[in-house]
């Protein structure tokens, strides 16, 4: 009997031949990636709906005129300052998150805890800012299904009849509260998940497990929230 096996009986060793993880990534992390992909579709649908409604409108309330207050400090004439602060808070909390992941690679429990707490604080600061921003707009008269009176609206537009101004302001208000609300809800759940993971780190769950992979998985979610804000920021505040 020959000791050589025919080609068809040979044990295949390529990444997709079974018996190993072809992506070289743990199952939960792959699932987090695909969840985020589906979430990206949801957010894109909302933002593209906003874009197409805005494209089809002849006039639209100017972002630099709607958002020009720093709640508690300046009421007028400071366009983009407050949302700039919110953007930097979220980028900073993304950085602290990635630093927590990096500390996890070195199994440095104390550092992971420190950076995770910093991330949670950043998340709460962002949510607080968003609450102030919503409160300010609501105070001005914007809400789902309601806009400020016509003489106030006039200041936000260059051109357009009163009826058109009313219609597009209403579209703007509905889209703004829906999209930033959906994003804010993601930030809120992200903060809750981050707190749970921080508690687990403190209790030594991942130390016993030998890997801080869970920190990486919530990190992916948290970066995704930051990623969505980058787009919301551009399309609501800059364009």
């Amino acid at each position, binding site marked *: 009997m020959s000791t050589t096996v025919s080609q068809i009986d040979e044990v295949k060793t390529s990444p997709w031949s079974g018996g190993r993880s072809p992506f070289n990534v743990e199952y939960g992390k792959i699932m987090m990636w695909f969840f985020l992909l589906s979430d990206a*579709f949801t957010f894109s649908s909302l933002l593209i709906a906003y874009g197409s409604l805005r494209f089809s409108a002849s006039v639209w309330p100017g972002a630099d005129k709607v958002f020009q207050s720093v709640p508690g400090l300046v009421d007028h004439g400071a366009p983009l300052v407050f949302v700039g602060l919110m953007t930097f808070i979220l*980028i900073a909390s993304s950085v602290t998150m990635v630093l927590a992941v990096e500390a996890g690679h070195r199994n440095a429990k104390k550092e992971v805890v420190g950076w995770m707490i910093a991330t949670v604080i950043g998340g709460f600061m962002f949510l607080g800012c968003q609450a102030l921003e919503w409160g300010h707009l609501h105070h001005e008269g914007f809400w789902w299904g309601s806009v400020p009176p016509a003489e106030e609206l006039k200041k936000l537009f260059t051109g357009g009849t009163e009826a058109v101004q009313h219609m597009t302001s209403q579209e703007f208000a509905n889209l703004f509260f829906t999209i930033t609300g959906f994003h804010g809800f993601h930030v809120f759940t992200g903060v809750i998940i981050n707190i749970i993971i921080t508690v687990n780190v403190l209790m030594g769950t991942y130390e016993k497990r030998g890997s801080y992979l869970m920190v990486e998985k919530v*990190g*992916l979610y948290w970066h995704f929230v*930051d*990623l969505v804000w980058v787009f919301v920021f*551009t399309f609501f505040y*800059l364009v």
Partner: protein
Amino acid sequence: MSAESHEIHHDGDHETMSRKRIWQVAGILTVITCIEFFIALVCVPKGILPIQYANPVYIVLTLLKAFYIVAYFMHLKFEKMGLILSIAIPVIFIIGLILVLTNESHHWVDLR
């Protein structure tokens, strides 16, 4: 499970995010955001850059930021090519929806 995940870690160890790299990427993101603010607060109001030219610049800068977040912070650049492609290719559907709805919105103008 723990042995398996340990092995996975070990494989990617040599090409991961060092602290220096993290601060570099954070710096890049901050600088890009500052450029966006500079355009929005200085260039557009003073008429240096008309808004219809500023908008494409904003979008390019946004996509650049998105690349840095996904590739470095979310670590996708260092994963296996198969995973990169299975996340990147479905984005075609988003581009498709953008093309369909922006085209459609040109017809809505007449309906309003």
